[in-house]
């Protein structure tokens, strides 16, 4: 499938799943998983950073329009879209390996550990920034930290399940391009 069409389908599916399924979950009245930003994590390697940030902005804005108070998810999404390329450069196994595969996955980042670090860091930053903006103060730092850490763990759990359920076919391209 064309990657453009694929990403459009992903965009709308992630938003719908997030708004109508995951947002209804409140464990102990404070933990809600967020998974929709997998859209940003799964964007192709070769996409420009400007485009990534603009797409993240659009994703966050679409998410926010269901919440009727724009800004929160937009800020969090733009944040991880900005940080993502740095992480890819840090974690990619060898020079030029990002042109071997289409997009980040267990396979293309060379194993479970690098990929887990990759999604773990991005999820943590997304949740932390989102909850920080929502609370708008450092007031109760323990509550904020516990909420962020627990939500990150739950989201990561769901992301790993999603990765296992929907295995993405990653073709190995020769790096002679």
């Amino acid at each position: 499938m064309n990657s453009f069409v694929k990403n459009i389908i992903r965009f709308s599916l992630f938003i719908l799943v997030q708004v109508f399924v995951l947002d209804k979950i409140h464990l102990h009245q404070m933990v809600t998983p967020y998974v929709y930003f997998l859209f940003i994590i799964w964007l192709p390697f070769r996409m420009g950073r400007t485009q990534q940030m603009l797409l993240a902005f659009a994703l966050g804005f679409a998410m926010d329009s269901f919440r009727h108070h724009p800004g929160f998810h937009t800020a969090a999404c733009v944040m991880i879209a900005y940080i993502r390329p740095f992480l890819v450069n840090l974690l990619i196994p060898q020079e030029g390996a990002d042109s071997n595969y289409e997009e980040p996955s267990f396979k293309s980042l060379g194993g479970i550990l690098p990929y887990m670090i990759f999604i773990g860091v991005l999820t943590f930053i997304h949740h932390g920034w989102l909850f920080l903006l929502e609370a708008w103060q450092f007031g109760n730092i323990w509550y904020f930290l516990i909420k962020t850490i627990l939500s990150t763990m739950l989201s990561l759990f769901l992301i790993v399940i999603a990765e296992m359920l929907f295995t993405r076919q990653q073709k190995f391209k020769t790096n002679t391009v």
Partner: protein
Amino acid sequence: MRNIFLFVRRYFNFILFLLLQGFSIYLIVHYSNYHNAIFSKTSNQVTGKINEKFNSVTSYFRLKKTNDSLVAANEMLYNKLKADFEYPDTTSRLKIDSIKVDSMEQFRKYQYYPARVVYNSVAAQNNFIVLGRGSSQNIKLGMGVIDPNSGVVGVVTEVSSGYAVVMSLLHKDSHLSGKLLKGGETGTLNWDGKTPNIISLAGIPKGVKVVKGDTIISSGFSTSIPKGMMMGIVEEVKSDKSTNNHLIKFRTAANFYNLEFAYVIENKQTEEIKSILEKEKQKSQ
């Protein structure tokens, strides 16, 4: 000049990042509830449509609970019927009202409109409820919203032609005034953003005796919610050391987890009250 261009080109991504972040934070801070940007009306219409489609499916799962609450509300109303009371004396006789027009209608203050809840959130710090009824069905900004058992839910803050957005009590900017049923002292409602269904009532002085189980009702000071609507039941009373007030936490009468139907209350005298206030303001200037 050339250096500036070089700088912008070199750090273009970083500048774009700062711009987008700044714009988002600007939206968070400056999105006031009575200043609707143009986008919010159209986006409200679009997201409302999607919400309604999903709600038409999910509402079936809660039909039993909805029915039970409506039966309870009906029971309450039946018990208020005049026909249920019979006076033992002979002074009251049955009379037929010969006036065809309802002569009380011109004195009507509150009108209730039923509405279906199409979207509801409790997990965020600022929670909203979307009703499937909008400005073309008589909903206006600032109307109060209650649940079928007359527990206060919130105030309408955004209206499009087919949908209305309600700022629920579980919103950091929602500060309605509540009143203790027993003593009549009024205070302000605040939500700390942590536990849904638990709200604090601030501004009740320590001299007032409050115990667990006391009822809190709406004060009727605002034009949106009539006096005497149930707000909740006191769960916990502590004394605030820094001020002269109690710290009161109460459980809301409306259960925000499973709202299905709501009633929107129109105050027909809002205009009159507003115009008097306006006159008074002009006088004092």
